């Protein structure tokens, strides 16, 4: 091929590539916390919940530690922080990174991870019952222990709860880094019917949750 033809092909390639690039939007919205190395993706139709509202709703710290980063995405066209903490008819993803103190570090376990948001283990549920908390309709749908090449460890727990009018399904993924200094979690939730309907989409979101290189 002569050099001139090569140049023409290159020019066409550049123009074509740019045209192709311009014509398409990304398939997902990519969410990242570069400082803590937490990443996941959500469908582009999901919208980010206002960060300020989210932070004021969750408070400055949890029982486990202080929040380093939080973001929530709502499949509803009108994203609201209320959807994060209540039963919704459309999926909501809520991710956060929590810093662990040395005391918290020594107390962290797979079970404490499972019981991070709601009592999942029988011991936690019994304790909640003893405290007269109204937690009904619990059903564990899936329970996995997660490890990866970076020595991050954690659990993925899918469970049902009936906290109000309709049964809800929660897909909770909790991970710690190798030094156990940070706790990462991603919670995707919606009503049981919604979860069943949107499971492939929800599964994509949860499977994309990656914690890498953080210490």
């Amino acid at each position: 091929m002569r050099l001139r033809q090569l140049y023409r092909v290159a020019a066409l390639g550049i123009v074509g590539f740019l045209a192709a690039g311009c014509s398409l939007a990304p398939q997902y919205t990519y969410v990242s916390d570069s400082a803590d190395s937490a990443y996941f993706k959500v469908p582009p139709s999901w919208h980010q919940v206002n960060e300020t509202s989210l932070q004021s709703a969750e408070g400055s710290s949890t029982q486990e530690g202080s929040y380093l980063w939080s973001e929530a995405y709502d499949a509803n066209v009108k994203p609201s922080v209320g959807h994060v903490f209540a039963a919704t008819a459309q999926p909501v993803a809520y991710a956060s990174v929590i810093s662990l103190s040395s005391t918290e570090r020594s107390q962290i376990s797979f079970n404490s991870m499972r019981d991070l948001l709601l009592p999942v283990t029988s011991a936690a549920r019994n304790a909640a019952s003893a405290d007269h908390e109204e937690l009904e309709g619990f059903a564990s749908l899936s329970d996995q222990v997660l490890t990866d090449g970076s020595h991050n460890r954690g659990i993925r727990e899918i469970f049902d709860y009936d906290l109000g009018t309709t049964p809800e399904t929660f897909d909770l993924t909790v991970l710690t880094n190798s030094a156990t200094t940070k706790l990462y979690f991603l919670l995707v939730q919606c009503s049981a019917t919604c979860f069943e309907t949107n499971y492939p989409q929800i599964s994509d979101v949860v499977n994309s949750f990656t914690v890498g290189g953080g210490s």
Partner: protein
Amino acid sequence: MPARSRKPGAGGPSPGHPGHVHVERLRDSERPTRKPMAMWDRLKFLALLVLLWLVLVWSDMANNPVIGFVDAARQQVTMAAWVEVLIGLEVLRQLHFLVSEHWSRYHRLWSRGIFGRTERASHRLSDWTRFRVARALKWLIFIALLALILGKAYHTSPVHGLFLLPGTILHALPIILYVMAIVSLGILQFVAIFWFMSRGGVDVYFPDDVSTRFSDVWGQDHVLERVKENMLFLEDPESIEKHGGHVPGGILLWGPPGTGKTLMAEAVAGETGKPYVFVDPGAFINMFFGVGILKVKSLFRRLRKLAVRYGGVIVFFDEADSLGNRGGSVGVQGNYSPSSRFDACHGFCYLSSDTQSALFAESLKASPAPRPPGRFRQMIPGMGMGGGGMGTLQALLTEMSGLKKPRGFFNRVVRRTLGLRPKPPPKYRILIMMATNMPSALDEALLRPGRLDRVYRVGYPSKEGRRRTYEGYFGKVKNQLTAEQIDHLATITPYATGATIKDLVNESLIVALRDDRDTIIWTDVLRAKLLKSVGPSEGVEYIERERHAVALHEACHAVVSYRVQKRNVIDTATIQKGADYLGFVKPIPIEEQFTSWRNEYEADIMVSLASLVGERMFFDGDSSSGVSGDLQNASRIALAMEGLWGMGGQYASYAVTPAPHDAHPVADGQDRAVFETTLGKRAEAHLAELADRTGALLRENRSNVLAVGHALEMHKTITGQDVSAIIDGTEGPVVDGRPYHTPEFSATLEEYHLRVMVAHRGRDGVPLPVPVPAAKQAEPISAWKQQAMDPNPEP
């Protein structure tokens, strides 16, 4: 539209490339369309921008492990929109070029219509206005870009980013100051080192610090008068300035070493009522680049201060050649030692000084060192970019001619800022004196009027100057010399300088002290002079027959020189073996002369040939290798006479032939066949003729040669007066010549020579001692003492 044209006469095939037609390239203004671009030029910016975009995509992927290439690319479509805008603009630009290359009307519309109109409109503004507008636009673009970057960095709007910047700078001020302090500390270390290194080498003397006066400088009255005149102008500048003149700024004293240049400068220091700054020759030889420049600047800062404070200052650069120059130079200058670079057994000092110069120059031609033509020449090669290099000389030149410019930060900057004109500097009355014995090593720019206005040669003192100098130095020691003896001493030491005279007087005192006397007598002076001209003996004793041969060899030179060299007198004849000679005969010129004549060169050749001709005569046709140097000298002079000086059979000069630069055809062996040429044959014939004349002369003077040879065997070193005394039959300072003119002693000498001849043939020892004249049985030292008793020796 102008058609493509060809150059007249270029229409046919070119001679080198049949069938090819040279078509003249059109100017851009003559082209109907835009000149087509190369494909690379079309694509390079586009490719660069695409590459930049890909880098952004890669960065996105690297920062987020979840994202794939496709989505990262799609994400960058929105996130890196500015790159796409640039790509779009570049595509548009290229499309514009492409259309311009193919559509002449479109091209004309842009080049002459739109751009041409803009150009014409902008040129209605003055150049200065356009420059200011362009500068303002550049600043605006810079601020806009900065605002964009700051907006990105602060995650805010570009305008807000600009307002946030001062706060950031203020916040970072401690770190900035800290870094600046560290940098300043580093710089200060260098400043301190350079400051310390730029000290030294410059001494300031105030009036009455130096006790030397003009009355201490002898023999250079003409130069001294000029120097005094310069000092007068410095002491009383109004005397010249009121007439519209200016005080001369610089004096260069140049001349051979020891002629009193530094002494003269010291006398200036002693006489002047102004401060006197002495700059050491080594002051500008530095290890580091820039220190010399700092020294020059610091020196002139001090000079200006002194000049303003005391109304004038004198600065003296001793050995100014150490300042170097911006070229190289090598030359020759007269006065050579007996041991020259010639490979001659007896040197060539029996020749006249001009012949010596010519031969020396010829010998230098054989050396590879460059020798640019110049008025001033000296024997020391390789000067040039010496210690004064590395910008020091340039700094000195600038300072020397920059004394009249407004100076000072306040004067030049602050006053101008306030709308005031800078004040002219005060009149810095600085007299710069330089001394060197190698003026050709000085930079030409240094010597121009305005820097060194006056150039004075401090040459060898005249006879009167020498006499005055001898009187001065002998006045400091006890002596019994008469005025006539001192006058005679001045006559027989033509190239004596203040330094050599001082040394001779000191040596005379040492000779006297060696004889347990504290008063110098005439013979002490003569012995000291002999010691200075011949040097100490190596202590090598010849075997008898070789001593006799060497003595006859030198006697032949001496007798022929005495008979034919009318412009010289013999100063010394010796057979004391030196480092690279067996003996020599040294003449001195009777008077200073600036041209040489054919008969003088012929006399020089005869003196040269006398050794070979004499050896053949006295040793039955046998001769020694010791004549090689003499023959070289004779051959060179004969060739030059025939080929260069028009003293032979032709007018034309071989100097104009295209010989390689600095090449001597004989000396460097490039043309050994020169004696096969007409030139060589003529030179050979001339030499043969002169050899015949020399032979006839020697035959006539056979007894004189034997007599001088005998005196040399007896005393090893004799003076020219002794040679005269022997030949004329009178009494010399060392040798009494009268016995040599008695038939008995002449017969004795012939007998002695015959016995030596026999021994020479048989390589035996000589059975007889050197015969001693009947009237002079005493030791040579007695002769000195006897001579000392005579206050009026025969001159």
